[in-house]
């Protein structure tokens, strides 16, 4: 893990229980898929940190090889890559996301 961008990414995902690499910010998402994941996290009432990849080209590219996932947004829970918009949305609809958060000991208060 000597790639400095990977180290920076690792620090981010280990720095908070729930971390979202997205386009834009939770307040001003710049992409429909990113906005959808933000909405899901807000509805789940789970606190999360995020990084606007539009302001960091190195991470925007580096994250794709880091997780072997070609698109943004990317959601991480306790350092583990969960998925992009499709997977997070599907997990939310089936209740899998809520179960995963509980299993990882992450408190959720209904928004």
């Amino acid at each position, binding site marked *: 893990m000597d790639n400095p961008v990977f180290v920076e990414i690792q620090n981010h995902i280990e720095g908070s229980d729930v971390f979202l690499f997205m386009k834009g910010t939770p307040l001003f998402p710049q992409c429909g*898929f990113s906005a959808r994941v933000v909405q899901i996290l807000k509805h789940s009432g789970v606190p999360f940190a995020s990084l606007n990849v539009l302001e960091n080209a190195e991470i925007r590219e580096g994250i794709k090889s880091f997780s*072997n*996932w*070609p*698109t943004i947004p990317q959601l991480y829970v306790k350092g583990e890559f969960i*998925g*992009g918009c*499709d*997977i997070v949305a*599907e997990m939310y609809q089936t209740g899998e996301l809520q179960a995963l958060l509980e299993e990882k000991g992450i408190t959720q208060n209904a928004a």
Partner: protein
Amino acid sequence: MAMQANEIEALIKAAFPDAKIEIEDLAGDNDHYAATVVSEAFRGVPRVRQHQMVYAALQGRMGGELHALALQTSAPE
């Protein structure tokens, strides 16, 4: 910066010969698709991994030539 639906289908079919594939053009701009892929190769595989397998089949076009591909993957019932 776009791909034809049959191109996507051909690439996925090449990687998953047994797959049942449906491609839907979401926006009519050859850039936003939804794809459903049912293949035995996905049995017992976590959903993230299933999608990574499909992206690999698209040989790096995902996120570049192809902007958005909403994926639904599963093993046959």
